[in-house]
């Protein structure tokens, strides 16, 4: 159940989204990418490279995805417990062979609200090619807080 971009594999030009839990508005992801499911080629959802373990928790039950043989676990908002997405623990061969963005962590369209993320300097939309690696991309780990 991997994701494929809408038009081309140049994922870098895609915008970075902030995703909030639809139930309690807590931010569940600050590095979302709008994508399409590989398995059916049409379901739109958000994916991310690394899920924020301080905002989402993993529900241990393992099950198979709806449209393919990927093994997945649900992800839920740590603040209110609402299921917001899932993550792939074992991708199936079909999905692996297809073009995908390598993200294993997905958020359902209906369970999160989204908005664009702006870059710090230009006041422009932040694109994936400019996004810092996840361990450096922390609001409060900036050098100077002002």
């Amino acid at each position, binding site marked *: 159940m991997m994701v494929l971009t809408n038009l081309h594999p140049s994922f870098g030009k895609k915008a970075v989204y902030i995703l909030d839990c639809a139930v309690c508005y807590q*931010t569940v992801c600050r590095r979302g990418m709008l994508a399409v499911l590989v398995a059916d080629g049409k379901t739109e959802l958000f994916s991310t490279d690394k899920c924020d373990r301080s905002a989402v928790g993993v529900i241990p039950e393992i099950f198979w995805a709806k449209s393919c043989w990927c093994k997945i676990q649900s992800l839920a908002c740590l603040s209110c417990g609402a299921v917001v997405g899932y993550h792939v623990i074992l991708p199936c061969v079909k999905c692996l062979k297809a073009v995908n963005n390598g993200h294993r962590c997905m958020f359902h369209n209906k369970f999160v609200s989204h*908005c664009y993320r702006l870059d710090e300097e230009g006041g422009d939309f932040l694109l994936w090619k400019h996004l810092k690696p996840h361990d450096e991309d922390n*609001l409060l780990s900036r050098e100077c*807080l*002002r």
Partner: protein
Amino acid sequence: MPRQADYRTCSQLLRNSSKLGNIYVDRPSDQSSRWSSDSNNPPQFLILRLEKPAIVTSVLFGKYEKTHVCNLRKFKIHGGLTEDHMIELFDGGLKNDHIPETFLLRHEIEGNPFPCRYIRIEPLQAWGTNFNFSIWYVELHGNNNWDDVKHCMNWYNTYREKEAIRLCLKHFRQRGYTEAFRELSTKTKITLEHPLLTQLHTVLVTNGDFKACEQFITQASNEGMFDQYISQQEYKPEWTPIEPVNAKKPDSSSDARPGMRGGHQMCIDVLTETIYMFGGWDGNRDLADFWSYHLPSQTWVCLSHDTERDGGPSARSCHKMCLDYEKKQIFTLGRYLDPSMRSPDRLKCDFHMYDIDSHQWTFITEDTAAMGGPRLIFDHQMVIDIEHQTIYVFGGRVLTSPSSSDNDRTPEMIFSGLYSFHIPSNTWTLLMDDCPTLRSRIGHSMLFHPGLSRDKEKRDNVKNSFWVYDILNDKWSCIYKNENVGQNYWLKMQHVEPVPRFAHQLVYDHVRKTHYLFGGNPGKDSLPRLRLDDFWSLKLSRPSSDYLLRRCRYLIRKHQFLEISSQTPMKAMTYLQHEVANMVDHNDPEETKEFQLLTSSLFPCPSIDDDAEPSGADRVLQDVDPNFSQRTNLFDKLVAFFPESMTQPKDNLVDLVPLS
């Protein structure tokens, strides 16, 4: 400290007592040198038994050489002379690192050390949420000198005997067993309470003299006997947004009040009741405007639009300011520079002073490091000792030129140490370099106040919390917390309470006991350049002694009313309308409601008294004044406001009866 002779462990499935021996040995590199619980379901604990009772004053936990998911994030320690009766000695947690930690354990009752023979360590949470608990190494420290311990045991036993008798005395008196009370009292010569309170008991409970009781309480309040109770009450926070009345502007084109910013600085002159604010970052650039706010007139005055133009410091943020309210001088040092601007020639630490009365800036020095002071730093701390005319600068991160470091991605962070600046002689002194014991910090904040110290918001994913540290009792209290993160919530609440933020400024007026907050960074991912420009005052309040006295008088009059109403309802009604009504705050909805409900007591109804203690079905005291138990209740309520050292025990004998 002799080695523990014996140990027990509680584990749901297996008794792995063999592993428990591992905690005697400190082998940080050995993964198997620890005790582990079999699960993390409660209860999990281990009990250490000492060869002989001792006064255990501290405990040391050794650790594994690296962070470990099984380390104890939260645990409690209990101790006692027997396994069945232990009291809590410590409640805390370990840091998840490799450094051994020592904690002080509670080892005194009323200033007297008490001995323990059993120590129970109960893990509550491991650093890895689902992981079992591990304890690598434990050392207990204290005094096991048998003479000392024996002495303490004697004291402790005597103490327990005394308390048991006091509980009996309290029980006998409450139940009206006056003879038994007198017998026990005379025989043991143990006093239940301070003689003044015994006097109050006679006046109120025995004589039913409510007027005298009221006089007594009033006098007690006036003599400050309720002060200790008041000081133990929690503060209640009260936020008020400040709307400035008007603004005096040097030229009409400028703004009437300061714009949005984070990383600015504020300081307060409590004598003139004026707040000064300088610089900051508005989301796009550093600022160089300088403002004053006069609290009584609620007016902003722009002292300077551009301090650099006026001979002062250039635009900056993450600097620090301190104010000498006697000499009326403000000092500022330090600032943050974007990495792209850190060429070696721009890294000099400039030091400026503003004279409030003459509105003049003085450029004290352009390079404090050359004068023996700190290098260019940001997020440091600066305080002034006005009496000794000395400024202390501590911590902060040193700004270095990127070209000088090999790894330009993450250059090694250098923190500044502790410096002092003697103003009259213009001399810098390095007091202490950054070192492991001092551990320089950045971004912390302290406000010193006689009696209490305050720390500003803890940065926890931009939530609001306000903590107070009681220096005397070494205790932190969170008196304000707002962890709501929903956008909708804050849209509604933004005029009631300040939205969560960091990089704001908080100053304290210790004369009027009010905090002032301005601006900051709300940390919105969707609007990274947004800064705040809101201005708030925060008052922390506790019930005043006047309030407490009024409530006590209300309670007394309420009880008198209830007694009168059972006999002469008409007289009671008048009493209620005048004497009781006078003690009610009719603006307070809760008090008004309670007062209004009292009227129902005027109408005869079989025993509806919500104040009566549920007593046993067969009441043992038949030949006692029916008002006795009500008056006893009132007495118990009133004495709760007196210092604990004066009063009868808080517990009741009946409550100690175990339910099987």
